[in-house]
């Protein structure tokens, strides 16, 4: 379907697609197996200027928006949802600076992100603070012109590989939800360590580790917005980034369908390609239709975000939950169409099924997304 992309967006999508096909597809199975971080691919993305597409030109970017970021994430995910996360996770870690950073902070950090010289990571989740992000225990204590951080962040995407970490920590416990603040912490800061690399079901090319702060000193100049704004920074970041997860899900779903379709056309049973059987055709038709619907919603929401609209929580949650549910269903069906071959690790679709699952879980489970959607719907009726 034609989504009326601009000339620049078409260029971005085509370049991302070419990198996905020529550079990522041939190595996706390798990185899934070894769980290594795909630095050579990050280098290609950096040299192609893709890390900077959603950042302002004043900070070395190309001046695009979330829509552009989604196009790239989708195309990369079509080849490997895990490798794509090195890119998308950097966007997530960078958004707090883009949305809430001062001009000085933007000047200090965004040009390196735009060049792909430094990756970024977003640190919110803790062992006892997942869906209930409000119960984080990491603290930041002000001492003169610096803050001292203590606590452990869990399941941090890009941890260890990234150079820039945006971290939410409690500065004033007494103030509850208004007692959190967001900080930029640079890799190498004294008192900052990384835990062991997690072994995951899917997106295994993506690095997931703990980030441990033990009396970690952060310059006061690295406080984002003001003290007490931590959760506002986090929520605004997630509202803005969720179309990116949706785009990752659409890409994974499309990649799974590509494989299933190729297989169905060439797999002969009962003397005919299985794509000639209505049972398979109807599955393929549903998969294709669901993906297109998810893509249309994702792009619409990405464009809404870029329009500068206020109150995007509901739409952003809708895109994330719908696209990720589609990705899971399509990936399961792709395995089903390929039967025994689909279940074998020598073939790529079982990986898409493993990769799809995380999109229903991270950046807010789909249950939390539904809470957000319903709460906003109810709020809207009350306003009328």
């Amino acid at each position, binding site marked *: 379907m034609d989504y009326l992309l601009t000339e620049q967006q078409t*260029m971005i999508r085509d*370049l991302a697609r070419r*990198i996905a096909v*020529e550079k990522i597809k041939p190595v996706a199975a390798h990185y899934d197996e070894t769980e290594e971080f795909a630095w050579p691919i990050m280098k290609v993305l950096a*040299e*192609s*200027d*893709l890390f900077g597409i959603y950042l302002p030109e004043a900070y070395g970017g*190309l001046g695009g928006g979330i829509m552009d970021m989604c196009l790239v994430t989708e195309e990369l995910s079509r080849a490997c949802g895990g490798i794509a996360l090195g890119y998308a996770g950097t966007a997530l870690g960078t958004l707090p600076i883009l949305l809430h950073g001062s001009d000085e902070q933007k000047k200090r950090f965004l040009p390196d992100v735009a060049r792909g010289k430094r990756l970024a990571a977003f640190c919110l989740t803790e062992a006892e603070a997942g869906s209930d992000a409000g119960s984080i225990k990491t603290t930041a204590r002000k001492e003169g012109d610096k803050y001292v951080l203590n606590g452990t962040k869990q399941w941090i995407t890009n941890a260890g590989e990234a150079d820039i970490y945006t971290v939410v920590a409690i500065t004033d416990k007494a103030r509850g939800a208004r007692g959190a603040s967001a900080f930029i912490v640079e890799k190498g800061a004294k008192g900052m360590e990384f835990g062991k690399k997690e072994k995951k079901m899917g997106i295994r090319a993506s690095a997931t580790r703990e980030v441990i702060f033990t009396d970690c000193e952060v310059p006061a100049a690295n406080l984002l917005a003001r003290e007490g704004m931590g959760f506002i920074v986090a929520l605004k970041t997630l509202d803005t980034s969720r179309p990116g997860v949706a785009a990752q899900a659409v890409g994974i779903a499309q990649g799974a369908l590509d494989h299933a379709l190729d297989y169905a056309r060439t797999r002969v049973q009962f003397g005919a390609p299985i794509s000639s059987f209505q049972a398979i055709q109807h599955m393929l038709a549903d998969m294709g239709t669901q993906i297109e619907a998810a893509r249309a919603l994702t792009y619409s929401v990405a464009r809404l975000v870029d329009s500068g609209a206020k109150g995007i929580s509901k739409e952003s949650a809708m895109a994330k939950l719908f696209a990720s549910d589609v990705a899971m269903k399509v990936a399961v069906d792709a395995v089903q169409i390929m039967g025994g071959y689909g279940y074998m690790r020598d073939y790529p679709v079982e990986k898409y099924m493993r990769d799809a699952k995380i999109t229903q879980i991270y950046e807010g489970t789909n249950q939390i997304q539904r809470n957000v959607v319903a709460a906003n719907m109810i709020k809207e009726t009350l306003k009328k």
Partner: protein
Amino acid sequence: MNIIVCIKQVPNTTDVRIDPVTNTLIRDGVESVINPFDAYAIEEAVRLKERLGGKVTVLTMGPPQAENALRQAIGLGCDEGVLVSDRKFAGADTWATSYTLACAIEKFGEFNVILCGKQASDGDTAQVGPGISAHLDIPQVTYVRKIEEIDEKRAKVERMTEEGYDVVETPLPCLFTVVKEINTPRMPSLKGMMRAKSAKIAKWTAADIDAEPALLGLDGSPTRVVKVFTPEPRKGGELLSGTAEEVAGELADLLKEAVI
């Protein structure tokens, strides 16, 4: 360092079809791309510039649409593009083509290095690069797989041979044709592609490059393609089966019969 890269636009297929009547390539309906071997020359030129500073000018002779290939090359890091295009060039063989390109290069003035792909994927002659150096009366090294050392005055390169490689030292300016072993071409960058979109491509005609009219195009071409044909496909070999001893004996007999 002033570097010139000569490129050619070729049909995007390794399965080139030939018109049986005119004996020329069928270009209709086939997308045109930069000759794959030239991509290595572009990459090497851009790497030299990144290392030593200077400028990369990409040059092609061809129809007006060859401008796209020049823009792609700018997207890959070249600085300027020059299209030499004139109806008078039509039908040029490798001699007339290399003469035309040499005339254009003489117009550039100072340069240190000319880079070309080892051959074009459509004609496969591998003659235009060496032809340019002959017309310009500068040294040439073909099948370069590595530039070991280079400064403004001289270079030391590895030239691939069937058994291994030669190490060749040459004064500059010099023309190198490169093989795919020399590098891995990068992906285009978005900033490069945007610069390419708005870049001005110089367009030169036969008059602009002070070329001798009699040496251009079909009239200036000492060679003619008399016949182009598709060779018979190679017949499948014979497969012997049995124990090692049986097969060896049978093979010896067959070789004796064939008088090899």
